[in-house]
């Protein structure tokens, strides 16, 4: 039986680049359904995405990356998706890398595959030093907690099967601010088979960057709190299972 593949792309004011990203996704995966979650954009993101052949889900107002991602994943889950790929709509994640990302899922070897920009074979833009250091420290911490080596825990370029999709969609407290590292950690802790593959990442060509100096400084404590929240949720779930 053929599987239905959904590509979920949260977008906020990406009207300038989103069409080219959708075209490149369709080149890589012609049978996939592309879902753009328009997170209250004030530009023509929704119109451009629809014209490029994507299904557009419009959030009533700007809710943030986490909510947009949760909406896209819920949409895919309710549509009966077997495989879901998440990628940024600002052109940072190269759709050509979808192929190595989806392969282990299709073979049934993995439940969640992450596109890493820090693996030796990865092709990446020059990540600013401070961000690189923070990202490495975070990866070390998460690897320690998860008991598995992870190099890029803030990647939004992921591929998951229906089991993992269900795990994320039914999560009681979906992380609204930092839904990358904590979701990965949650997946690993609940026994999902997680793997990293090298991917190509470009510098974002879109609008506002999420990682300004001030935002980065706020991001760190938020992320640590989010990790703590995942650990608490996991412990709570474990207690409930007993």
């Amino acid at each position, binding site marked *: *039986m*053929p*599987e*239905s593949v959904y590509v979920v792309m949260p977008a906020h004011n990406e009207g300038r680049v989103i069409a080219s990203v959708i075209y490149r996704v369709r080149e890589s995966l012609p*049978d996939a*359904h592309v879902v753009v*979650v328009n997170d209250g954009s004030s530009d023509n993101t929704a119109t451009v995405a629809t014209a490029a052949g994507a*299904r*557009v*889900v*419009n*959030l*009533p*107002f700007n*809710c943030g990356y986490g*909510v947009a991602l*949760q*909406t896209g994943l*819920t*949409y*895919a889950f*309710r*549509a*009966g998706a077997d495989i879901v790929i998440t990628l940024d709509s600002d052109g940072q994640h190269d759709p050509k890398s979808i192929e190595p990302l989806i392969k282990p899922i299709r073979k049934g070897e993995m439940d969640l595959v992450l596109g890493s920009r820090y693996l030796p074979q990865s092709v990446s833009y020059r990540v600013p030093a401070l961000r690189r250091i923070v990202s490495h420290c975070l990866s070390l911490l998460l690897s320690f907690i998860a008991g598995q080596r992870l190099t890029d825990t803030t990647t939004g370029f992921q591929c998951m099967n229906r089991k993992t999709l269900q795990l994320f969609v039914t999560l009681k*407290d979906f992380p*609204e601010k930092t839904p990358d590292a904590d979701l990965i950690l949650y997946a690993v802790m609940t026994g999902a088979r997680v793997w990293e593959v090298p991917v190509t990442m470009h510098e974002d060509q879109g609008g506002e960057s999420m990682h300004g100096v001030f935002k980065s400084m706020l991001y760190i404590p938020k992320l640590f709190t989010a990790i703590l929240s995942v650990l608490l949720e996991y412990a709570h779930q474990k207690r409930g299972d007993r």
Partner: protein
Amino acid sequence: MTIFQLGSGMTPIGHVALEARVLIFLCGLGLCIWSLLKLRRRSLLVATCSLFLTVGAAFIFFATFPGLFDRLAYFSGITYPPTLYLIGCVVILILMIIHLAFRLSLIDERCRRMAIELALLRNPPPDPSGVKAELEQSKAGGDHV
């Protein structure tokens, strides 16, 4: 005679002047009336209104019986009674911040869920069985070609 006893309107330390008592009484009364008016117009939550009413009632009570407040302060080990006012205000403010932060988190979470459901209602996902049939059809068509 100490510096606090100088002048006609001055009173010794630890005692509240009549003017101050009237002012505190009026503040308490104003707070109670404002809360009740807001409650009548349904523009203030019952829980928040009850807090304001309690604070207003406490103002009125201690303005009417200032001696009780002084005694309460001395029983609490506070030698300068107005300090008890300050501590009370700080504690109430902290409790209010905690309560409001909790309410805000709850409302934020509900708002988030509503936004998602609204978005999915406006743009409903396709029926999974239809998607599967379409896929099988396209696959069969592709294989045929």
